[in-house]
């Protein structure tokens, strides 16, 4: 595994020609071999390149995918507050190395991102980052679930959605208020769905395995119930609901039904939920301790089916970097979450494309075009005139996950030591190469 080099964004435009790549653009359903010309930060030609285009840098993309830059809807950047776990610099470098040209920054920072000043701080700190950072505002002050945060002021400062991140809003009337007030500004509400009275101190999925491992269990029904509650409220209020990190068959079934009923709900899952099950925790592997926890094979299969039929719209990393000491020692005290920005694409290619569940086009749709639609930002397209946000991917490269080569400070990968297929070779942000392996 080669670490590659990050270049900070300087708006220093060069003419770039990407030749002979497999151009995959879900926004136009284009999937064909061809070239892309970039000038002044924009895509100026796709397919056949005008004879008079002169490139300062030519990239031979033969055998590689050329796709719109990916957008990750669920990233915990940790700055401000826990810069020992991740900074905006290290997190955006990890994003660029993972093929992402955009990330949604969850508001569970310290202090919580719940005001215009804190949104502005994140925007300011990420101005030269190798990846666009879209801050999400906390739905409630300090994420305490008690008072509404100032959605309007946060929106004007640069927030793109409001979120209850890392933990659910428990009070049902408060969720209704959040949804109604989000509607006032046409902001989507990103919900973490978990009935914490049921999940309690659960350290893994509740099952016969949790019983044998002697760990307190978090039952799948704790997620199902809160998904049902949020969907009912979305139907009632008409708000745009986005459900983060779906892990259960029960949740998938309800989201599918809600979509059939025309309720405005979108949903994401993360690669660990379609790759692993609770069995993969055996030996008390703390890097696979997640919230929601890894579930069972029937859930994993349901997640894959839901990605195939579109019930799950998006794959997001739920990138949750932690220090080594936070992920070792007593298993039930270890923090939840995995560092995911640098493995999300490859894990998805490995589990979904290589095994024939999703075409490359449908995978990129779930990693780029649809997330851009949900966040209502530009991107997710390779059409002429759009910003040149592009990832170039070798879809056949097999590489071992060596977390010491991560750009992220979080070494806590659920895939550590595994072999994954598919490697990001270049990431181009607004016409500038920001990552080259």
């Amino acid at each position, binding site marked *: 595994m080669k670490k590659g080099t990050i270049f900070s964004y300087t708006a220093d435009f060069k003419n770039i020609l990407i030749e002979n790549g497999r151009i995959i653009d879900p926004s136009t359903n284009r999937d064909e071999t061809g070239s892309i010309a970039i000038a002044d930060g924009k895509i100026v030609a796709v397919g056949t390149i005008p004879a008079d285009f002169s490139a300062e840098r030519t990239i031979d993309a033969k055998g590689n995918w050329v796709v719109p830059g990916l957008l990750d809807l669920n990233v915990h950047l940790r700055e401000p507050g826990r810069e020992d776990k991740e900074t905006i610099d290290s997190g955006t470098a990890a994003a660029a190395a993972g093929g992402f040209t955009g990330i949604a920054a969850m508001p569970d920072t310290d202090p919580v991102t719940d005001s215009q000043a804190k949104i502005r701080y994140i925007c300011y700190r990420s101005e030269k980052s190798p990846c666009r950072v879209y801050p999400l505002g906390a739905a409630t002050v300090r994420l305490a679930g008690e008072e509404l945060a100032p959605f309007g002021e946060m929106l004007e400062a640069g927030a793109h959605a409001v979120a209850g991140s890392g933990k659910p809003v428990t009070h049902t009337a408060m969720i209704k208020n959040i949804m109604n007030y989000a509607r006032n500004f046409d902001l989507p509400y990103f919900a973490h769905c978990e009935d914490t009275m049921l999940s309690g101190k659960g350290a893994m999925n*509740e*099952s*016969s395995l*949790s*019983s*044998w*491992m*002697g*760990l*307190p*269990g978090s*039952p799948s029904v704790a997620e199902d119930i809160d998904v049902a509650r949020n969907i009912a409220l979305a139907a009632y209020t008409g708000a745009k609901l986005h459900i983060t990190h779906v892990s259960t068959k029960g949740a998938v079934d309800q989201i599918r039904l809600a979509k059939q009923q025309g309720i405005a709900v979108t949903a994401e899952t993360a690669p660990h939920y379609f790759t692993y099950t609770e069995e993969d925790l055996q*030996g*008390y592997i703390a890097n696979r301790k997640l919230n929601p926890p890894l579930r069972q094979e029937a859930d994993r299969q349901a997640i894959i089916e839901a990605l195939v039929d579109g019930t799950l719209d998006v794959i997001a990393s739920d990138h949750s970097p932690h220090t080594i*000491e936070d992920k*070792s*020692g*007593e*298993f*039930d*005290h270890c923090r939840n979450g995995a560092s995911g920005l640098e493995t999300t694409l490859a894990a998805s290619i490995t589990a979904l494309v290589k095994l024939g569940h999703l075409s490359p086009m449908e995978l990129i749709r779930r990693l780029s075009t649809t997330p851009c639609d949900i966040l209502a930002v530009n991107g997710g397209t390779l059409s002429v005139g759009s910003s040149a946000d592009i990832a170039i991917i070798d879809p056949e490269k097999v590489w071992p996950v060596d977390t010491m080569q991560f750009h992220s400070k979080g070494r806590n990968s659920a895939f550590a030591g595994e072999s994954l297929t598919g490697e990001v070779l270049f990431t181009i942000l607004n016409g500038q190469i920001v990552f080259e392996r």
Partner: protein
Amino acid sequence: MSLQIKHLLGLKDVSREDITAILDSADHFAEVLNRDIKTVPTLRGKTVVNFFYENSTRTRISFEMAEKRLSASPLNFSTSGSSVSKGETLRDTIQNIEAMKIDMVVVRHGSAGVPKFLTECTDATIINAGDGYHEHPTQALLDMMTIRQRLGKLEGLKVAIVGDILHSRVARSNAWGMKTMGMDVTLCAPTTLLPQHTESLGVKVTTKLNDAISDADVVMLLRPQLERQTHGLFPSVREYRTYYGIDRDKMNLMRDDALIMHPGPINRGVELESEVADCERSVILDQVTNGVATRMAVLYLLGGGEQ
């Protein structure tokens, strides 16, 4: 003689040969404990750390006694809570102790998986003295030793384990070990004190006390952990006692030769009436005596001592 296992983390993956070797050795040490001079030199020069992160009287004293009987040097480290409340990581604590040159660690901790974790951060031999709700293998071994001593065999015997199965590491270790030894295990508890998913546990499960105990060779009671009753898992001590407590009348439902066991501590008047706990069919104090012999056997076989 040596075992296939290098550490005793639980009985889940311990073979029948290893369990038999430990029980045979424990029988031998039981004889030693009946001699005038009860100490043997087998582990002289070895240092064993008793690393107890959870309150324990019986198990800690039993291990310390076993270590002294084997001439090992015990070192006691007791604290309560977790590394989080202590302010030093578990890895740092164990590596600091290991740096003082120790050979074996006996560990008790409230978090499942800690003994396994310790094998990843030290070269010392690890013996699990109870981790969370996971396993308590020496307890199950001493239970099997006691049963074999009284009934002459293990294979084919019917065992009913009655009580708070949900929170019991003793039940789990016994279920694994007894299955391996060819015993017929039935777990009995109210549904709220059973694990949520019992279908793949590989043992029989019932909520009816009568079904569990009527033809059992051994009835093992576990105490309902009253301190854990924060979520209303049963309504009252009285109702628990009515359905799952063993008194004279319930004992009459059992076979005349059935053994009564309890890993302690007993909630007298809850799961076991005093008259039953102290009757001639109760082997509860034999379990305690055999605990020392069993732990001597485990320390000896894993410690590479010479006999």
